């Protein structure tokens, strides 16, 4: 990043300061008393702020951006203008943190769409290409090694998850006598995580995807306790990604860079699937084990699988109604 670019960023901040920070500030002044937390950011930052209002000393942000983030409303209550401001802040923050120009959109769900996923466990060979593809696509912290997909190595004849190996590392896969079962967010229709969240920071969108507003999550991790599939991951520290590894095409309720202290998980690649593309894990899978599609489309491949294959869902007895099915190559005998 050149100095000139840096200045440009700051000039945007100048324009936004009265407009954005103050407006929100007065609107919600009343709650300040309850949030002494801002003070934790430090007196030194405040001193810097007075001397150089545009120096990004507020947790790597300028004062106006920090205030904008602080007072940002819940996703469903933001006006178009507020959403635009939020998207601009996300871009500026990425530029400052990674030195990369990213795009960030708020892609809405497509009409008449309800997504589901099916995975052929007889085709999965345990390569973990899906895991890798997911990380590259979704900007997970590399130091923190967040992975949305976990491939379990199972013994043949046994489907007890407690006997699975999460960290299998043989010279080559598949290993004889083993089979492989990838697990990620099952996008439950009756989702325990959504019910558990105290602030509605996570919800089932109209296309069936369980999304998270990373700016609204308070980091209580109630959803992580609630999830029976261990799909949710917490940012225990600020996620670090090398500039060249950033995927610059991001989505607000999707793969935009996250901050420390919030929960994230698989979102069926909203940034791709809401534009008619495949999720990254499906694209990455070399064996064709993964089938993603619209459950409302009677001609979709996923509908064909549900109608013609013997399928099962993970921990179905819990009543979570996952939209993620497992099946095998064996076709079901039709009467």
């Amino acid at each position: 990043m050149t100095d000139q670019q840096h200045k440009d960023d700051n000039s945007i901040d100048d324009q936004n300061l009265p407009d954005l920070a103050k407006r929100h500030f007065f609107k919600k002044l009343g709650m300040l008393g309850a949030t002494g937390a801002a003070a934790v950011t430090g007196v030194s930052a405040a001193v810097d702020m007075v001397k150089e209002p545009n120096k990004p000393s507020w947790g790597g942000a300028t004062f106006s951006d920090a205030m904008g983030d602080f007072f940002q409303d819940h996703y469903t209550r933001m006006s178009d203008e507020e959403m635009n401001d939020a998207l601009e802040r996300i871009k500026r923050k990425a530029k400052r943190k990674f030195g990369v120009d990213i795009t960030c959109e708020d892609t809405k769900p497509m009409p008449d769409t309800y997504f589901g996923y099916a995975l052929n466990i007889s085709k999965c060979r345990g390569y973990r290409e899906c895991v890798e593809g997911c990380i590259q696509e979704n900007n997970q912290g590399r130091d923190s090694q967040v992975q949305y997909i976990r491939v379990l190595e199972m013994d043949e004849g046994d489907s007890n998850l407690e006997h699975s190996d999460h960290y299998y590392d043989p010279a080559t896969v598949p290993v004889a006598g083993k089979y492989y079962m990838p697990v990620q967010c099952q996008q439950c229709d009756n989702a325990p995580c959504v019910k558990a969240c105290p602030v509605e920071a996570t919800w089932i969108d109209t296309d069936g995807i369980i999304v998270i507003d990373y700016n609204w999550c308070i980091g209580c991790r109630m959803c992580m306790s609630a999830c029976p599939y261990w799909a949710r991951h917490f940012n225990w520290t600020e996620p670090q990604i090398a500039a060249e590894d950033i995927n610059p095409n991001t989505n607000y309720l999707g793969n935009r860079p996250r901050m420390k202290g919030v929960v994230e998980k698989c979102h069926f690649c909203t940034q791709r699937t809401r534009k008619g593309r495949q999720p990254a894990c499906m694209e990455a899978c070399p064996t064709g084990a993964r089938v993603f599609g619209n459950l409302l489309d009677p001609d979709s491949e996923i509908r064909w699988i549900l109608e013609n294959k013997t399928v099962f869902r993970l921990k179905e007895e819990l009543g979570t109604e996952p939209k993620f099915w497992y099946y095998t190559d064996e076709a079901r005998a039709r009467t």
Partner: protein
Amino acid sequence: MKVFCAFLMDAMKTALKGGPLYYMWMSFLLVLIGITAWSYSHQWTEGMVITGLSDQVSWGFYIANFAFFVGIAAAGVLLTVPAYIFHRKDVKTVVVIGEAMALSAVIVAMGFVAVDIGRLDRAWHVMPGLGKFNWPNSMLAWDIVVLNVYLFLNLFIPMYILFKHYQGKETPVRKYFIWIVITCFWAISIHTVTAWLLSSNVARPFWHTALMAPRFISSAFTAGPALMIIILQLVRRYTDYPVSQSVIKMLAIIMAIALQISLYFVAAELFTDFYFEGAHAASMHYLFLGLDGFDGLKSWIWTAVGLNLVALTLLMIHKTRENMVTLNIACVLGFVGIWIEKGMGLVVTGFIPTPLGEIFEYSPTLMEIGVSVGIYALGAFVFTILTKVAIEVELGRIGKHKNILTGVGNTGARAE
């Protein structure tokens, strides 16, 4: 209003004045609070990576302490009921100390939640109206409601009574009796909801049991009286406030009964899990016997069982329950035993193994304990001030209240 300001001023003066021992005690607590401020500033800048927590075990020492101290707060009711429902005059004299303990324990519990959430700067998101509150669905939302109301109840009822006493007035109990009844039910509700915070998770078989809330109440009614017995003795030693031995006897009996019920519940859980050991028993197996070579909590839980059994024995033998030395030993053992069992033993074990069958152990870091010490200290700090002010008012040293030492006469006359 003017009188109320005077009341607050006098209260403030009382809090600031004291002997050398008082100053030493309060400075010690402030040092601990300072350690927390320093440790938390690290957690704030670096993230919760400074804790021993992980995606596998996502709650630990903080939430364990939170659950435990909600129990201590709930146990305040054990003085309120005898004082106001059973009209025990001896208990009524010290009920304000129980309320101060409940209030301080709520503050400690809330402190532990505050340091456990990843984005404290977004705490306003839980405020109804301003934020977005997932009520009535989320059990955490319920917990926020009940804890805040309990805090409010335990602040305003004693403050109202003390303020009246300060003015030399005696309020008839019937005027605020309804609030006392509400507080009693509320005490049970805070700990029930805290138990449901865990037991509502179908993903965690170890917690997903209807016995969780009863277990929480019974263990709270063990640890609560244990702490109260010790605190009442301290009040008796360091102040001239009348603490009747009959109150301590009553609490010791409550503790003896509650501890038996608590251990009985543990036994019932153990039977159900171990008689025919299914997949749901994995966490219990890990806790008591270890699993696949991992047994980080095994010695921990057996220590708790041992402490509780010794405490129970001391409480069940009439002589050792009446003897203050052995009673105090029983209180310390019971308190620590419950703290281990329902703290780390209950919270951490729920995460092992993970829902995908992975075993990943947890132990708190030094930083995590550093963040915690000042939260305990804050509770002790608040409790000391509240008790000091209450005692001065009750003894008529500030305000116009009739000195209960000389005015009312000896308390506890009808104790036995």
